[in-house]
């Protein structure tokens, strides 16, 4: 698969430069082998590895973001006495610690996991404030203003920079990527939030088909959305602060641009623009608005909330300054930058009307920004910090009003709980409520899944959308070409979130904010003409381009290509940041420079006329350790491109040494390795480019459900539920991504010998026939570990629960048999078998928790409230560990880890790495299994029907590769698109290895029937395939019920397995029974097994009566006698329906016939 990738826009060419004349030197040049650049991938991941975007975002917050927030709000003072003030001078984040008896104790993440604490660090500030009647200045360094949860592996974390031995001492797994928080003992991930870019113009159509230009402005102070739309040939501004849309010319006049000619010049001299603008100008004249004052008066009449705010300059003027395209600054009342910005919006809107190609795609990745945890916590911290300061100001006002009061320490007004509990609550619940921006988001943070190592990594690279998943629009769900290399094309859920929830690709990096001032100065130094010096005529002169910096118009440049090249040269040499993006948009005649956070970008090799700058000696230095990835950036060999800048590049997948110079000369970049367009989870799939695409997506979902090893410290954790595979293996046919992410060390499956053949009827559909001896030897065996938590509660008056030893009679025998698992301390003993209904904590509770304090309780004052284990009868479960700790309220917490080793049984679910899942249909003795003359007996038999309709050719190649691997003793590779570069073995090479070791080149063997001993008539495709054991096991899902609890309202059986509910007979089941004619079975299911109820019905009036048990007679309330009563059985829900109808004055009457 060889191709060159050309993004949406053609490569920008300088029209003055002539194409190089074709030469014939390439025919005589020696053909050189392409440089193997794979070593750049581990070097990149070492520097910017997995989930580094989470850590970088948080590091940016704790180093710069928090400082900027505090600096912007660094002074609070009493309202009526400015001499009473408090100032924050500097702020920093300390080391993670917890306050115990007023002493700070250092904590580690694992300590917080086990003891249900929050892994947080104090936010320290140096404050100074006035004190006393003379207002002396007092300083207090290292004042704690709150506790901030710390992201693992960030700068403030104790794990930062530690090697493997040190991490082991801390109880951590070195393969754990970090990037999450521990809040109240739970691991929480703040998912990457995807949203539209801020401060950028988007041209679109709305639901009514109108052309709109919209900008979402975002600054520290305010967020607002500005929409300009055209309706009936007139252009209006729509802003939430105005009750009606405002004609756009009125807005321009209100901002000081009173001349219609100047507005027309600002938009453009093209007569087509004038034609489109003329009806709006006419409307303004019709309203008799000619001056700025009149325009402001017109707008003042339409303000949503009149009367509030600054009255001197008028409400609408302040709206125009602060809310209307809020990110464009107004300095000293100069509205000209806003006028120019509005004109650019109008011009682009008209371009879209005249030419549909210029509409913006909201789903284009370059129009998206990813909000990471650092930004989200920054918003929350700022809100909480301001709330804390507001509360402090209120207290200062109260104290300052009291004359002659004693001097008070102002620092006591700072309540650190506001920040501490606010942050903790938000991360714990996932609800982000910020009143200032009216932001109410849910599900921002989620519990990090520890089902498998891949599930954890998948969580860290996940991107969630902003809008509802229930909408069935296909636009946001479709695969975008701009996602190439940035977002994984395979990893997305099925169902309602399909296409909306996405995952990052392997080399993707998400940027953080960079300082804007020096970059702006650099732009002016390189020839950008300031906007304030230009007239409308000059702004849109032909041949010159606007320069927009993070959505703000800087000015104009007459030589845009040279400007872009100069900027890129500076970036490649490291003078400006490596993530700054320079995008020359030929359609818009605009150069976009972006240095804001949240852009996805990736590294690419720079090529000069198709020849890569990375040479073999560079790679040798990298392998020898002399050169690092950052050296490649600094020397200008590799650079980061974001999605927009990729439009100016021509990116080749491989070096094309077979092409001549003319074809190669337009290539600007080369991929480091094409397998990096997939993400972490999709990188597990061998030969995904040989599979049908949905199969790769299914495997991305199932790879997260596979059991295996989750971390090196998996046996020291206390997760609620943990599944481990007893003999996890690494795949025989592996991929480079597997080695890069460490999956070969924490595997989640086993290599099984699979025969693809028919065998009995038990492998119908997707079922698998399994070899009993393989299960005996440990195939698919897993361990399920579950945590049960008991709290020793405290009550008023100093009373609390107590733990007692098991009660015994005088002979020493246990009074209750279900106490056999207990030790003498009242807790279950580790290593003992615990069965269903056994007690694992022998707890007692005071009978009266409201008793007078001080009284001593005796044994009679306690009642038994033991913690009883609820398991499956007949299964052998073992107490693994019992842990005691105190929680933050100093209550005793008992955590009991109970372990169950399970062997696969019929109904358990398995899957290969290609979306081919199946349950175990039957387990067959080994002597009945087919065998080859080498004695190889397969572990499982797969139905060949699984292959043709699903087109998982990659699985077939995996079988061949695994067979070759086990023959020659080497791992084989199946990385995505890896055949040309050697990261995937070719089928021809694999077949050659098979033939060399005596196997058939196509992977087929002659098998003999195990039952009869005869040779099978067909050759059987047999070899090792990596199989995953999924978490769906019969033991967790099996449910049967003869009788049990019922719902109170309808007296029907409860619903669901966990409530011991009845088995559901749905509508489809009912239809089948009707079609089959099994009416008595319907009767039995819906009445006798559900909610039969005997009612007394009056034959005369048809209403329900009742049965008087004292008189032993039935009675009708309507007829006032019992002469005509008849007994019948009906569902209780039916009786309930009748009674509810009667409550609504609807009288149903029963007309009885003889039975």
């Amino acid at each position, binding site marked *: 698969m060889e191709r060159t990738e050309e993004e949406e826009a053609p490569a920008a060419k300088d029209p003055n430069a002539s194409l190089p004349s074709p030469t014939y030197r390439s025919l005589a040049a020696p053909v050189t082998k392409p440089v193997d650049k794979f070593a750049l991938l581990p070097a990149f991941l070492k520097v910017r590895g997995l989930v580094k975007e989470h850590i970088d975002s948080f590091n940016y917050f704790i180093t710069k973001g928090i400082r900027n927030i505090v600096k912007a709000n660094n002074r609070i003072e009493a309202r009526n006495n400015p001499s009473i003030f408090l100032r924050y001078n500097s702020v920093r984040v300390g080391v993670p610690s917890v306050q115990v008896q007023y002493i700070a104790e250092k904590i580690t993440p694992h300590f917080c996991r086990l003891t249900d604490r929050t892994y947080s660090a104090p936010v320290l500030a140096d404050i100074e404030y006035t004190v006393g009647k003379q207002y002396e200045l007092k300083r207090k360094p290292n004042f704690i203003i709150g506790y901030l949860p710390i992201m693992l592996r960030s700068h403030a974390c104790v794990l930062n920079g530690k090697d493997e031995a040190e991490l082991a001492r801390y109880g951590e797994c070195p393969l754990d990527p970090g990037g999450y928080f521990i809040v109240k003992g739970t691991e929480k991930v703040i998912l990457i939030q995807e949203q539209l870019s801020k401060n950028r113009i988007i041209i679109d159509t709305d639901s009514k088909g109108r052309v709109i230009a919209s900008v979402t402005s975002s600054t520290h102070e305010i967020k607002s959305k500005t929409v300009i739309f055209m309706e009936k040939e007139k252009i209006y501004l729509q802003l939430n602060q105005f009750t009606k849309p405002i004609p756009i010319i009125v807005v321009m006049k209100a901002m000081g641009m009173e001349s219609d000619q100047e507005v027309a010049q600002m938009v453009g001299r093209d007569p087509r623009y004038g034609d489109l603008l003329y009806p709006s100008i006419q409307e303004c004249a019709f309203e008799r608005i000619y001056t700025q004052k009149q325009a402001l008066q017109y707008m003042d009449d339409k303000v949503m909330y009149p009367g509030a705010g600054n009255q001197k300059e008028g409400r609408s003027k302040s709206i125009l300054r602060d809310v209307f395209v809020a990110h464009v600054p107004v300095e000293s009342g100069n509205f000209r930058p806003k006028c120019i910005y509005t004109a650019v919006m109008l011009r682009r809107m008209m371009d879209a009307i005249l030419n549909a190609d210029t509409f913006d795609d909201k789903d284009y990745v370059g129009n998206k920004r990813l909000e990471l945890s650092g930004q989200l916590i920054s918003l929350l911290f700022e809100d909480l910090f301001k709330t804390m300061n507001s509360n402090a100001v209120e207290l200062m006002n109260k104290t300052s009003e009291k004359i002659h009061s004693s001097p008070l320490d102002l620092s006591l007004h700072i309540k650190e709980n506001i920040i501490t509990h606010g942050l903790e609550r938000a991360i714990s619940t996932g609800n982000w409520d910020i009143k200032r921006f009216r932001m109410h988001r849910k599900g921002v943070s989620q519990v990090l899944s520890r089902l498998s190592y891949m599930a954890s990594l998948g969580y860290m690279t996940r991107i969630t959308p902003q809008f509802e998943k229930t909408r069935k629009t296909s636009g946001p769900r479709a695969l975008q070409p701009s996602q190439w290399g940035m977002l994984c094309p395979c990893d997305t859920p099925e169902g309602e979130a399909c296409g909306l929830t996405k995952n990052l690709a392997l080399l993707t990096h998400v940027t953080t904010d960079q300082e804007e001032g020096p970059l702006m100065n650099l732009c002016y130094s390189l020839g950008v003409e300031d906007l304030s010096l230009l007239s409308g005529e000059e702004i849109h002169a032909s041949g010159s381009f606007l320069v927009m910096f993070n959505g703000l118009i800087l000015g104009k440049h007459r030589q845009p290509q040279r400007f872009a090249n100069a900027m890129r040269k500076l970036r490649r040499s490291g003078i400006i940041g490596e993530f700054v993006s320079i995008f020359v948009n030929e359609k818009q005649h605009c150069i976009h420079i972006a240095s804001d956070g949240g852009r996805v970008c990736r590294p690419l090799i720079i090529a000069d006329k198709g020849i890569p700058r990375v040479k073999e000696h560079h790679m040798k230095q990298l392998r020898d350790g002399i050169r690092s990835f950052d050296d490649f950036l600094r020397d200008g060999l590799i650079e980061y491109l974001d999605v927009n800048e990729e439009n100016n590049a021509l990116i080749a997948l491989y070096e094309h040494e077979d092409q001549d110079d003319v074809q190669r000369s337009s290539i600007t970049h080369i991929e480091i390795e094409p397998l990096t367009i997939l993400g972490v989870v999709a990188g597990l799939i061998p030969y995904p480019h040989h599979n049908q695409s949905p199969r790769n997506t299914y495997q991305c979902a199932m790879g997260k459900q596979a059991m295996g090893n989750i971390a090196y410290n998996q046996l020291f954790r206390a997760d609620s539920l943990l599944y481990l595979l007893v003999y996890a293996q690494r795949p025989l046919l592996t991929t480079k991504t597997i080695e890069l992410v460490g999956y070969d060390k924490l595997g989640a499956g086993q290599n099984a010998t699979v025969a693809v053949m028919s065998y009995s009827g038990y492998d119908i559909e997707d079922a698998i026939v399994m070899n009993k*001896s393989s299960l*005996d030897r440990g195939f698919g065996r897993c361990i399920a570990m579950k945590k049960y938590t008991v709290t020793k509660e405290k009550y008023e008056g100093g009373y609390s629960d107590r733990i007692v030893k098991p009660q015994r009679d005088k002979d020493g025998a246990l009074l209750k048999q279900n106490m056999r698992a207990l030790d003498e301390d009242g807790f279950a003993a580790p290593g003992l078998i615990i069965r269903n209904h056994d007690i694992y904590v022998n707890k007692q509770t005071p009978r009266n928790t409201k008793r007078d304090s001080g009284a001593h309780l005796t044994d009679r004052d306690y009642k038994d409230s033991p913690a009883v284990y609820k398991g499956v009868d007949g299964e052998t479960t073992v107490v693994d560990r019992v842990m005691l700790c105190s929680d933050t309220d100093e209550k005793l917490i008992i955590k009991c880890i109970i372990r169950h080793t399970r062997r696969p049984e019929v109904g358990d679910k398995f899957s290969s790495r290609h979306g081919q899942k199946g349950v175990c249909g039957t387990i067959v003795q080994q002597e009945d299994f087919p065998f080859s*003359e080498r004695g190889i007996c397969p572990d499982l038999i797969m139905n060949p029907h699984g292959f043709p309709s699903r087109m998982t050719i990659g699985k077939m190649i995996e079988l061949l590769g695994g067979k070759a691997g086990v023959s020659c003793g080497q791992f084989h590779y199946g990385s995505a698109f890896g055949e040309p570069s050697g990261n995937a073995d070719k089928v021809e090479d694999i077949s050659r290895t098979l033939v060399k070791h005596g196997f058939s080149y196509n992977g087929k063997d002659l098998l003999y029937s195990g039952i*009869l001993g005869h040779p099978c008539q067909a050759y059987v495709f047999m070899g090792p395939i990596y199989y995953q054991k999924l978490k769906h096991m019969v033991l967790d899902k099996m449910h049967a019920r003869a009788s049990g609890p019922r719902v109170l309202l309808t007296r029907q059986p409860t619903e669901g397995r966990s409530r011991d509910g009845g088995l559901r007979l749905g509508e489809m089941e009912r239809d089948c029974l009707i079609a089959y004619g099994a009416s008595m079975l319907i009767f039995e299911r819906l009445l006798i097994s559900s909610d039969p109820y005997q009612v007394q019905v009056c034959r005369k009036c048809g209403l329900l009566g009742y049965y008087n048990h004292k008189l032993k007679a039935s009675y009708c309330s309507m007829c006032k006698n019992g002469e005509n009563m008849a007994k019948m059985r009906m569902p209780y829900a039916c009786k309930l329906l009748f009674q509810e109808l009667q409550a609504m004055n609807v009288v149903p009457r029963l007309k009885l016939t003889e039975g």
Partner: protein
Amino acid sequence: MERAAGGVSYQRFPRVRIRELKDDYAKFELRDTDASMANALRRVMIAEVPTVAIDLVEIEVNSSVLNDEFIAHRLGLIPLTSAAAMAMRFSRDCDACDGDGSCEYCSVEFHLAARATDSDQTLEVTSNDLRSTDPKVCPVDQARAYQHALGGTEPFDTAAAADQRGILIVKLRRGQELRLRAIARKGIGKDHAKWSPAATVTFMYEPEIRINEELMETLTLEEKRNLVESSPTKVFNIDPNTQQVVVEDAEAYTYDDEVIKKADAMGKPGLIEINAKEDSFIFTVETTGAITAYELIMNAITVLRQKLDAVRLQDDDADLGELGAHLVGG
């Protein structure tokens, strides 16, 4: 391949010729019988020859990283020398201990006590650390090391030295301890694979290869070489003296038809004809070391004979419950 006409039962006089016989490996020919007998022998060798394996584990102390069930499972899979297994009793039928399986007639007791104390080195607990109360039943690696210490049958080499390390059970770090008692009992592979003495047992039909000499003469030497190399396994060779294609190893043939396809591609169909003899079987037996290959074969024949006797001796109205009589032992 055509199947022999069924329905007619006839008396057979099978012949056995042993080609290779080692302690854990045997290769022999079985002739003048049909697939049912060969397959029955294979099945009995895999699933019905009794051996001894650890069946109950009582763990007193286990502070290693593996949990109790994990270690118990690994102990059960260790092959134990089972030469005495045929004479032992099944625990469920033992009258000496009333079926609880703890007496000397039906079980063997093992002890293991290991503790990593002094150094930072990881202590490897292997099958050599298991102490048996019966010297006849012990892990196979122990038995092999014992034989070697006596200056026994095989000379010393690095492979034997590697074998003496024993089967790894668990690794202990400093301070970790493992102490347990285990009981080994008699069983058959049908119940659990740990009791199967066969690492693998397989047979193949002996191929009958016929070369058409007249067609072979029309081939050039290069064509002959290509024909020989078309087979993934080395079946044919070229005689350096006569330049003729000869069969070097007929049993290396894997019935993959590659050489026949090659002949067809050369335009010479019928150059080589290969058929499977339906009355000749080449058996390959590998054992886990619990019993020798010879014992495995002879015990299998004994078990098979017991089953046949049970069928023959039953009355017409009796059920087939006696088929399991050989499982009683004694």
